[in-house]
């Protein structure tokens, strides 16, 4: 059972199809939700929270039907919306406590966890101030605190770094990484910033025009590209290439001592240095190519809308 299962999910709002035949299983601990504006990211989140009824197919969160069992899902989920969403007239601690009580905690437990959540996100010192007096960064953090306070199994963060300055953004990313590292909670992070998703997620779902443009495990993608290496050498390059081929590598030489090679699994970078040392070749530069999320995203965006909805890169 995945964290989120989508089975031919189709959602219409009025006459517009906002999600069209989404099928896939998301298993990652931190799942990135990417896509241009209007791709259907927020619609998918709203569907997972049970706000939208699917026209066809279904969405499941932890095996529970997103619409039929929305109350159970909402108990297990912490949601941080994209836009300002709080009660400005309340103090930070009172607001977080209120949200925790609504999630099902008793008043005493909610108060205790509200304090903890506020200290965790770094708002401990300002927790008795009215939220309306908070800065934009603080408002983002209070939304994170309320999403965390009841100890959810899945944390849905919609554009968590929206409007933050570089330092506040870094702090938010670090908090998300810390939550990820604790391992107790799954994360679904919707963002249009590839860097945020790249830094925090291990799986990515890319949407385009309400369809899945790509669904891939970022770590696996990186691992699959780990064996592709670019070298810049000085010395007996041809002889070095022959020796490297002898190890079982696919190798191509270029003018200026540049060599591109694909290493088999049993060969490590260290073996290349050993051969270079034996043959008096200097390795001036070694690039282990890493397929960036940007590459994955751009390839996904190049796919036409009519292409199969479920594309594995």
């Amino acid at each position, binding site marked *: 059972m995945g964290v989120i299962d989508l089975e031919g999910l189709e959602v219409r709002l009025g006459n517009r199809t906002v999600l069209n035949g989404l099928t896939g299983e998301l298993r990652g601990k931190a799942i990135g939700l990417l896509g241009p504006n209007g791709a259907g990211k927020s619609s998918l989140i709203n569907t997972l929270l049970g706000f939208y009824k699917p026209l066809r197919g279904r969405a499941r969160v932890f095996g529970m039907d997103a619409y039929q069992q929305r109350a159970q899902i909402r108990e297990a989920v912490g949601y941080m919306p994209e836009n*300002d969403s709080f009660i400005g007239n309340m103090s930070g601690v009172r607001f977080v406590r209120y949200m925790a009580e609504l999630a099902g905690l008793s008043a005493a437990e909610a108060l205790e966890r509200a304090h903890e959540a506020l200290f965790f996100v770094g708002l401990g010192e300002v927790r008795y101030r009215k939220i309306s007096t908070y800065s934009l960064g603080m408002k983002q953090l209070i939304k994170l605190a309320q999403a965390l306070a009841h100890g959810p199994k899945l944390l849905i963060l919609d554009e968590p770094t929206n409007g933050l300055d570089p330092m506040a953004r870094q702090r938010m990313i670090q908090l998300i990484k810390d939550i990820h590292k604790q391992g107790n909670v799954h994360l679904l992070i919707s963002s249009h910033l590839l860097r945020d998703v790249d830094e925090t997620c291990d799986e990515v779902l890319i949407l385009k025009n309400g369809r899945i443009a790509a669904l891939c495990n970022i770590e696996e993608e990186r691992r699959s590209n780990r064996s592709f290496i670019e070298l810049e050498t000085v010395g007996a390059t041809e002889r070095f290439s022959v020796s490297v081929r002898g190890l079982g590598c696919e190798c191509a030489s270029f003018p200026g001592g540049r060599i591109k090679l694909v290493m088999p699994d049993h060969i490590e970078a260290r073996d290349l240095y050993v051969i270079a040392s034996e043959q008096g070749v200097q390795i001036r530069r070694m690039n282990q190519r890493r397929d960036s999320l940007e590459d994955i995203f751009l390839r996904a965006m190049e796919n036409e809308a009519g292409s199969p909805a479920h594309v594995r890169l």
Partner: protein
Amino acid sequence: MSVYKHDYRPFAGKVTPRWMRIYVLSRYGAAEAWSSKITVGLFVLSLLPLVIFLIGIYLANNPLARALIVKGSSGAIDIDAGYFLKMLEFQSWLALILTAWIAPRLISFDLADNALPILLSHPVSRFGYVLGKFLAMFMFLSIVTWIPCLLLFAYQAYSSPLPWFAAHLSIAAGLFSGAILWITVLSILGLALSSWVKWRVVATGAIFAAVFVPAGVGAIMSAILRTRWGFLLNLPMMMSVLWQRMLGAHPIFAEKYALPTPAILAMLLASCVCFVAMLNARIRAREVVRG
């Protein structure tokens, strides 16, 4: 309090039953309303007439005290359906003032900062949210309407030297049902209008306007068209007629102006349905972040 725990940890305790979430909404709503000194002032003010009615009952049942305090008065105070009708009318109009002040505070804070997407992302349905706010309003209004009225009724039953209680039980039933009907209408009206108006002061004005402007329009209609049906827009008049019939008091208005009870009830029901639809439409539109 364990504020030293700065790590995230999951919650492993027991969660409260679902109906408790409605209670949580009511509790926080009521607390928000009470946080204003004006609320406290209005609340105290709305209990003052009850003290006067209490004194009236005391004097009615104590001829000696009456003779000492109201010098030169030989007439007895009649504690009957008319007396309790006046009491209910007083309290009901004070309830309207309280509604105009409290209802916007229950809803507009949630709407002003777009809190609904967060509130409703918890295990609370739209219906649950409205019910929670409605109950907060209903409880408030109950404290100034049917609860003190019934307490004074009980006091009269206790003080009366004659076997009064059993013979006048219909007054208690009328007080209870009349007040419940009124505060239900007021609560729904207050919440519906507050949800549509962004500023609290404007919402307060809109609540008064919703009661009195149609009444004026209805009166004009009735005068021009020479019909009594225009009074169906006159909420104060409809309620007065209804209360008078429920308590069994003497008619207040001439028979030709009095509307039939089923017509009044149907109009109140239609108004409530309309207000609920307004409320539902507004909250539905604001429950999700459109992206």
